[in-house]
């Protein structure tokens, strides 16, 4: 179980971070982990099953808002808030999936985009009394769990790391399981999968709901981390961000999406320190990587690794 050893080392090094790094870095890595959960969930649909969803921000944002509603009303009900976020996002995923998964290819993507935009506008305008409209809701409390309050960034970091570990483990198991294999088969050849006897429609809906629910969990953690929520987390640019990060890191792999998140955020930090035109530089880098590194960073890592091991191809 090489993958397990790898993940173990990763988690161990992440756990050691607070000993080495300052508060700013701890916050930064927490953000990467939260977005990493979002990207991993997204990749279940995109990389594993081959469906390009362009509205996944709807699930992130819904999870964030529901979590915020519950926590603002009942600050000590952390677990309830998390469950609420997961359930709401999962429900939304079910409804969207029912509509969008009837289509394929570009139409599927555009439908998810449309649904995402609808949710965004709904949250911004008619539901503004509930969501605070553009101004959002500030002061979302940090969790209080088992008598411990996580207002301190370092302890919150460990909470997020714990959840991250659980998710990575669960997704790793899912990917290797028969269920995961079927999804991979659907990605490779949907018609063949149908002919072999799998209910492709059902599989797609199930993974869509799982992906949506976990994205909602990521949203709840995000709301908790920045103690704020607003419709920006529902916007199509947020959906676009997760697609970019997953592609950059390496779609269809376990840790590729997380690497993509880390690379994107680090790149932004580094570039913005040098110039105010960092967005343009980021664009150029993405173009290069898309053309010359289609398997993303994770894919590019395979080459030196294989060479190191003395393998060919």
């Amino acid at each position: 179980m090489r993958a397990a050893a790898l993940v173990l080392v990763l988690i161990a090094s992440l756990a050691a971070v607070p000993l080495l790094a300052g508060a700013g870095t701890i916050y930064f890595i927490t953000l990467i982990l939260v977005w990493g959960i979002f990207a991993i969930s997204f990749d279940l649909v995109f990389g594993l099953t081959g469906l390009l969803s362009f509205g996944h921000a709807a699930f992130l944002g819904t999870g964030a808002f529901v979590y915020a509603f519950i926590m603002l009303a009942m600050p000590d009900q952390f677990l309830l808030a998390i469950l609420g976020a997961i359930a709401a996002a999962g429900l939304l995923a079910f409804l969207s999936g029912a509509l969008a998964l009837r289509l394929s290819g570009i139409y599927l993507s555009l439908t998810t985009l449309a649904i995402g935009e609808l949710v965004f506008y709904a949250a911004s305008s008619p539901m503004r009394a509930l969501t605070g409209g553009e101004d959002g809701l500030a002061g979302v409390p940090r969790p209080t769990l088992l008598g411990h309050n996580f207002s301190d960034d370092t302890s919150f970091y460990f909470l997020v790391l714990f959840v991250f570990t659980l998710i990575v483990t669960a997704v790793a198991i899912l990917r290797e399981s028969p269920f995961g294999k079927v999804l991979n088969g659907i990605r490779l050849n949907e018609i063949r999968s149908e002919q072999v006897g799998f209910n492709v429609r059902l599989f797609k809906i199930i993974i869509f709901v799982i992906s949506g629910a976990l994205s909602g969990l990521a949203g709840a953690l995000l709301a908790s981390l920045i103690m704020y929520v607003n419709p920006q987390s529902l916007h199509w640019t947020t959906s676009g961000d997760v697609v970019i990060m997953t592609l950059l890191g390496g779609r269809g792999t376990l840790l590729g999406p997380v690497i993509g998140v880390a690379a994107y955020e680090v790149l932004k930090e580094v570039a913005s320190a040098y110039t105010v035109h960092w967005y343009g530089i980021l664009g150029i880098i993405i173009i290069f990587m898309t053309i010359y590194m289609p398997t993303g960073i994770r894919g590019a890592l395979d080459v030196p690794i294989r060479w190191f091991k003395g393998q060919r191809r």
Partner: protein
Amino acid sequence: MSLVVIGLSIGMLLFLLAAGLTIIFGMLGVVNFAHGALYMLGAYVAYQIVQWTNNFWLALLFGPCLVALVGGLIERFTLRPLYGRDHAYQLLVTFACVLVIEEAVRLVWGVNFRAMNAPPSLAGTTEVFGSIVTDYRLFIIAFGIALSAGLFFAIEKTRIGMIVRAASSNSIMASCLGIDVVRLRTVVFMVGTALAAVGGAVAGPLLPLKLGMGSTIIIDCFVVIIIGGLGNIKGAIIGALVIGMVRALGQQFASDWINMLTYLLLIVTLAVRPEGLFNRRGREA
């Protein structure tokens, strides 16, 4: 009735943009996210030409040609290496082009708002069915009709149009017949880009020129071409007019629901007739 006139002008502006987008999709199978940024570039370039020559018509004529060159570069260097790959990569690269174009515009023109005004010949107003409508809007409607007629004619009735249609539906066969499909793709992309730039130049006198003006309008364009049918010019016109009317009616009766209405309409279309009003249902890549 004035509602209809205003709805038409809103729709026509959308059509100018959507036409390019739908042509590019039809021929290249690429959803060009950079379309909005090229529209913005078209507006800024037109603004600059007006600053230099004080002539709107020159800007309308030459601006799009310049921007089309940019489009050609984009197709040649970022899209061409990616044909045959998953659509997601093409999406990603056009997304990245948006970032680069926006930064370039910021470098040249800065973050301040720029103003472009309608040419003096179109600065007046006319009364139409009891409402005051600007001559410029009437110009947009006329221009839109002329352009759509021209495009339609070019695609349906001319030889080059036939070649484009052939290459769109079966590029391998077309290439066997001696058509340089690779170069044709570049040309079509440039035409699509030029149309976006025309949209930008035309929109300049109506809307503020600012960074990011493309991203607000690109989503509307997607709505239009989905409703009309991807790749279908006739559909783009009708779709644009429909959305234009929806927005006009929305402003008249329930201005804060305009966006919700537009997206509900889109979702209903996708649920009931995803291929759009004018396309035939086919197998999708």
